């Protein structure tokens, strides 16, 4: 078993990892930027090392300082959390070169899944359905046009090395494809140094459903069921639940099996997530694999009773999975609301500041993962997510009632947060019916905000 873990992250996920280590009797070393001297992760870890100035590129992305911090404090391993260096295959390699166990998949699996076109091909060879489109990348606009016609307009032109919406174009007609191809390709060339493109059928407002998997170093792969992450605003998830409501058992089973096949095909080890889009007819298509722990992992932990972070650590230590697929049982329904320090009335503008007063909810089946405390500062340098509230109910209706109760108890003064919006969603008829798609917030946000304003709300 690992003896001392360097936690290469900050915020609630760093605290989450430190908590798992504490319970396992593993020592922790936190790293922190000059802005995080008083942060909870810095205080909770057995030891903390300052690794740089506040901007992430100088500290939480500073590979040299993080590796040195691990070495000088005698760590045997590094947990990257999510974001920052978690899906950087070069960082995982450097950890290995320095005799540090990277708590995550092998660098080759990270690199393979990081190349979106290669990941599609890998999934396809594993008989995992991918969004209809090109096999691999297109040689030029003509090939892209042919592929687009074959799968039907509208299509998405995507950069193989893409991310963050760069090198991405929606094309509605054949006439537009050549210009769009050249523009997106040159954009990708300058942003990622790689202008190769592929074509995917555009699926309007699908559901976003993902499957959690765990794989050990002995080739055992199990899934922990699916999560519905369709409640998004501009690709930022707001509310997640497990299992997915109104998804047929047959479809769920097919998706779970597909995720396990994809993990096996890429030689996966550790905790990972296969993301799928699901259309109205429950056709599902693999879009990508996230090779890290995810923000929404607690809903899966709630319904399976499996501590995913502890499993990551056990797998990295070289242990076999202690359970089989048949041992995994699903119980009840879990919902997570992310809390971000943002002003929902002002285009979700981030709201850094000082927490003047804080009261988190408690009671049965309520979990709070957060790194904020009374009087702490929300730094403008990092992500605006300041915590998550997770509830576990006997069924979806019970979970919703628990979430309403938990949110009504919560008080966060000093910064504006998305809490009131989440609270309103818990009463929205479309949400209550379940099975909504990723267009939910775009459709419902104006009315929800209007209700909020009329009620005198000022988050």
């Amino acid at each position, binding site marked *: 078993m690992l003896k001392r873990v360097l936690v290469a992250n900050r915020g609630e996920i760093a605290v989450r990892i430190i908590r798992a280590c504490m319970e396992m009797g593993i020592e922790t070393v936190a790293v922190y930027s*000059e802005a995080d001297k008083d942060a909870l992760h810095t205080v909770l870890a057995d030891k903390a*090392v*300052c*690794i*740089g*100035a506040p901007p992430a590129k100088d*500290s939480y992305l500073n590979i*040299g*300082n*993080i*590796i*040195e*911090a691990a070495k*000088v*404090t005698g760590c045997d391993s590094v947990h990257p959390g999510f974001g920052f260096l978690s899906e950087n295959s070069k960082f995982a390699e450097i950890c290995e070169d320095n005799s540090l166990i990277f708590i995550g998949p092998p660098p080759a699996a990270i690199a393979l899944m990081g190349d979106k076109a290669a990941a599609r091909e890998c999934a396809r060879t594993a008989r995992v359905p991918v969004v209809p489109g090109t096999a691999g990348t297109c040689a030029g606009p003509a090939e892209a046009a042919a592929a687009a016609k074959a799968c039907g307009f509208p299509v998405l032109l995507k950069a193989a090395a893409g991310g963050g919406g760069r090198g991405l174009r929606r094309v509605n007609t054949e006439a537009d494809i050549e210009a769009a191809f050249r523009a997106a390709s040159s954009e990708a060339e300058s942003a990622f140094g790689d202008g190769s493109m592929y074509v995917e059928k555009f699926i309007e407002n699908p559901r976003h459903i993902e499957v959690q998997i765990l794989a050990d170093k002995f080739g055992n792969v199990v899934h922990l069921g699916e999560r519905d992450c369709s409640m998004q605003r501009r690709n930022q998830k707001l509310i997640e639940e497990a299992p997915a409501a109104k998804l047929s058992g047959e479809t769920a089973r097919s998706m779970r099996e597909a995720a396990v096949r994809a993990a096996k095909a890429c030689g996966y080890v550790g905790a990972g997530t296969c993301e799928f889009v699901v259309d109205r007819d429950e056709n599902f298509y693999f879009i990508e694999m996230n090779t890290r722990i995810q923000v929404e992992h607690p809903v899966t932990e709630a319904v399976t009773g499996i501590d995913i972070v502890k499993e990551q650590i056990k797998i990295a230590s070289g242990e076999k999975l202690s359970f089989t697929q048949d041992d995994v049982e699903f119980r009840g329904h879990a919902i997570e609301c992310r809390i971000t320090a943002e002003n929902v009335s002002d285009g979700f503008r981030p709201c850094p500041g000082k927490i003047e007063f804080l009261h988190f909810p408690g009671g049965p089946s309520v979990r709070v993962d957060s790194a904020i405390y009374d009087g702490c500062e929300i730094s403008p340098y990092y992500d605006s997510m300041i915590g998550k509230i997770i509830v576990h109910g006997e069924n979806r209706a019970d979970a919703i009632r628990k979430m309403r109760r938990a949110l009504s108890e919560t008080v966060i003064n000093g910064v504006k947060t998305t809490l009131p919006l989440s609270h309103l969603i818990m009463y929205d008829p479309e949400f209550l019916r379940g099975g909504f798609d990723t267009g939910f917030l775009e459709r419902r946000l104006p009315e929800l905000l209007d209700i909020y304003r009329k009620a005198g709300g000022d988050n």
Partner: protein
Amino acid sequence: MNVEEIKELIQTFAESGLEEIEAEFDGNRLYLKRSADAQAQVAPANIPGFCPNTVYTGWGAQIGQGLQTGQGAQIGQGLQTGQGTHDITNGSGGAGGIGVDASGTVKSTAAVGEGEANTEMVKAPLVGIFYEAPAPGEEPFVKEGQKVKKGDVLCVIEAMKMMNELKADVDGTVKKVDVKDGDAVEFGQVLFEVERC
């Protein structure tokens, strides 16, 4: 200390941007303190771009020059070592905007702050292992009390299998070495205290 000298000191104080000052000559103590209103009037006109780090040396030099007939040199000295409590009891009187308190014993905060400001804290620019010498068993690059010039190597920090030389960015004297050979150092940790000269 005569009236002319005191006037001159007051004039210098008024132009300095300092909050308060105490001075002592032969058992005589003078205490000058600026009121909030006066500061508002004086500050914009007389201290363009003045910051505490630059106040000290400039101010010390002004006193030294301004009180050549008196004991300016002593004042300069006294302040430089940061002692800060000097009395001048035959001094009284004040001009508009400057309050004089002959009996006060408030320490000169400016002097203390400036005393520290003369010391350069050399901090670790990266995480790694601190080495005081170019190789094991060799003489350290610098020792306490040693004079260094800007650009002189102070130590080596090993990170990512690379030896990174850390160079002095001021001329001065190494007052203190805050870490030991072979110590792990974190970003921003103070390694040396160098007194500028």
